């Protein structure tokens, strides 16, 4: 299957290739990148390669505009981390930054040109209530859309609803596990906390070990119901892998850690996509298919269709089918059946009601 976004993926893995694109190729690339949330990432990569002068000025203006925006969000996130550190240090427990927050705090390559919409933190379940009180006192409020959503988070997913700061309007997700408690895969947050590194200059903020950053990102991608950012998430993962792929022992340690945390499946799916789409060199033994069940074989093309669903130029007639499968599956993975069916029915009903309203 010819890849409609070959130039885009090539630009992500070999940024110097952008210098040889024609204006017509740029026309499509920019639209795809915008739809995928990757304009700022391309801009950051071009800057790193120091070949901005070789790009058409019109293209660079578009890229640079989004990069400035993303950089501003990163600055805002760093400030937010400062304030969170102040608010939560009295709990005397590690606060683990996940994903974007961790990348920004580490000044990691994966934070370059990445839009941050919310901050994700993880603390132990025992401290969840105290954390909610401390955050509420500092101006954070839980931000569920309605009573149903509130119940979804608290009673069924055993999570805090997303929080929003009342004057800064920033968004915060407080987790106590890497996956919802009701998820079919059980994973072990205390092991991630045990290997985490404290951030210098902060009182209580920690970041996961580099292996856990990769595994969490992979898990999040594969459990995601909406795939508009699938390609961007893969790009983040590519950058997370890049510094380590030739390190002695890296792959063994990664596999071993995946087993410890029970996250072999997400890792496998992500490695296949990175290998086939991004050309990441993965040792044969590591990329070997999962033993047993037939379902995982189907998941690979389904996930690929999901990752490539972000723009009309990369969609096929199968894409909506894949999107439906992935949507149902993400809920299936998060929720047991007796909760899943009523939940999906409720969501479908709500969507129909709001569509009808906009038609009148």
């Amino acid at each position, binding site marked *: 299957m010819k890849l409609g976004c070959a130039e885009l993926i090539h630009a992500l893995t070999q940024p110097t290739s952008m210098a040889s694109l024609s204006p017509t190729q740029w026309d499509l690339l920019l639209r795809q990148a915008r739809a995928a949330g990757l304009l700022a990432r391309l801009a950051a990569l071009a800057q790193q390669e120091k070949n901005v002068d070789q790009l058409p000025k019109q293209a660079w203006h578009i890229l640079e505009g989004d990069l400035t925006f993303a950089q*501003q969000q990163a*600055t*805002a996130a*760093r*400030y937010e981390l*400062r304030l969170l550190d102040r608010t939560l240090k009295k709990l005397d427990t590690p606060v683990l930054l996940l994903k974007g927050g961790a990348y920004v705090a580490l000044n990691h390559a994966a934070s370059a040109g990445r839009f941050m919409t919310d901050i994700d933190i993880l603390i132990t379940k025992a401290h969840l209530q105290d954390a909610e009180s401390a955050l509420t006192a500092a101006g954070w409020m839980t931000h569920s859309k309605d009573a149903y959503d509130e119940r979804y988070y608290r009673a069924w997913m055993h999570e805090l609803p997303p929080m929003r700061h009342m004057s800064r309007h920033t968004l915060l997700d407080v987790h106590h596990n890497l996956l919802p408690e009701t998820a079919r895969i059980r994973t072990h947050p205390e092991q991630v906390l045990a290997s985490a590194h404290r951030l210098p200059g902060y009182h209580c903020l920690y970041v996961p070990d580099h292996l856990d950053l990769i595994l969490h990102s992979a898990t999040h991608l594969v459990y995601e119901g909406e795939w508009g950012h699938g390609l961007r998430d893969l790009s983040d993962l590519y950058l997370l892998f890049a510094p380590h792929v030739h390190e002695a022992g890296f792959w063994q340690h990664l596999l071993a850690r995946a087993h410890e945390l029970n996250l072999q499946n997400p890792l496998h799916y992500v490695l296949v996509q990175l290998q086939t789409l991004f050309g990441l060199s993965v040792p044969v033994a590591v990329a070997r298919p999962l033993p047993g069940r037939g379902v995982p074989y189907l998941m690979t093309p389904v996930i690929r269709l999901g990752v490539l669903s972000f723009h009309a130029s990369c969609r096929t007639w199968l894409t909506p089918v894949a999107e439906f499968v992935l949507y149902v599956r993400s809920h299936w993975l998060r929720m047991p059946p007796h909760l899943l069916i009523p939940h999906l029915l409720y969501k479908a009903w709500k969507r129909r009601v709001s569509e009808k309203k906009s038609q009148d």
Partner: protein
Amino acid sequence: MRTLHWRIPPDASLIWHCWPGEHEYVLYHGAANQTHQLAETAGLFLAFLASGESDPDHFQRMLRDEGIEQPEEVLAHILEALHQLDVIEPIDAA
């Protein structure tokens, strides 16, 4: 009781400006990406801190010398407002 001393936080990234003939400042707080309008005395206090000073009592004497009325109240208000905006922080006076 030793007076609290103040400073601009090292990572605050402040830029401020007052146009000639005017009496209010615009302030950009880089770390928080916020922009504010400040009364002249507040802007002067930031310049005071930026020059290496930290003792608010000294600033209060300067206000009195300039003929500013009720300098203690003015200073208290400045400290509260700027601290609230997170553009100044107390330091150990030791």
